[in-house]
């Protein structure tokens, strides 16, 4: 394995490295998949009203389905950064101190407010949580939600974040290769599904990604 390569990549050797090109391809696939789920419902709604205006309530139901399906996927994506169970308070404080030493003032302040650490990478701006990460792509319009965690559930919350952050800093492509993609789609759609306290982090990351 090459120097600077995340050693965990050996465990998923069959996966192609997730670089910028792979991310664009995955983004397109997710868009196509979303369209494939939603367009038939929209077409059905239009057709029903066209055939018989009295079927408008049924059309409305079809449109609701078209709207709900991407929302459900986005909800699955937003869940990757859902806060986990807290452990011993003293351990949490100690872990928070170490995490704070690894990041700058702005990231520390954002983490204190939202529980997420913002980290600029080559692939975009990452928001690292305890058991997952969001990647806001350059431009800020698309976000990818990754499910990834340290293999010790007993770690304090800030330690779980620090483990992921260090792995990300070692090898960004490796990090995205090891992680499982839960969702790729519009930033606004994921923002609606995040816990309200976390939304400022996504807004900040989108601003960074546009800058």
């Amino acid at each position: 394995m090459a120097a600077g390569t995340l050693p965990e990549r050996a465990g998923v050797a069959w996966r192609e490295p997730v670089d910028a090109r792979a991310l664009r391809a995955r983004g397109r696939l997710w868009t196509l998949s979303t369209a494939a789920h939603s367009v038939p419902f929209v077409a059905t709604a239009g057709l029903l009203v066209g055939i018989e205006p009295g079927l408008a309530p049924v059309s409305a139901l079809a449109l609701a389905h078209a709207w709900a399906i991407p929302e459900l996927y986005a909800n699955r994506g937003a869940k990757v950064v859902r806060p986990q169970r807290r452990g011993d308070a003293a351990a949490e404080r100690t872990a928070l101190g170490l995490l704070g030493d690894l990041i700058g003032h702005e990231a520390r302040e954002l983490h204190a407010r939202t529980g997420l650490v913002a980290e600029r990478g080559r692939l975009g701006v990452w928001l690292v949580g305890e058991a997952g990460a969001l990647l806001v792509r350059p431009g800020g319009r698309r976000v990818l939600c990754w499910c990834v965690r340290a293999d010790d559930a007993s770690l304090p919350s800030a330690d779980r974040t620090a483990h992921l952050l260090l792995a990300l800093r070692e090898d960004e492509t490796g990090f995205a290769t090891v992680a499982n993609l839960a969702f790729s789609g519009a930033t606004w759609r994921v923002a609606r599904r995040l816990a309200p306290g976390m939304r400022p982090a996504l807004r900040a990351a989108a601003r960074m990604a546009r800058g």
Partner: protein
Amino acid sequence: MDRTGHTTLAEWSAADDAAFAAAAEAFREQLDAGYYAVVSEGEGQARQVTALPADADLVILRRPIAGG
């Protein structure tokens, strides 16, 4: 990093051979236990090491990660 937040396993200096040897021994034990060693190189950068660097200010031992 562990369940207590973190534990200092060893402290050493390049000038103190005995302390460095003890630290290197503790380091190897942790690698054998499945930890990875990382040297933070400022914001946005970290480097995995497989031997204890005598000149590093801080070496952090982390658990492996996996897709959830």
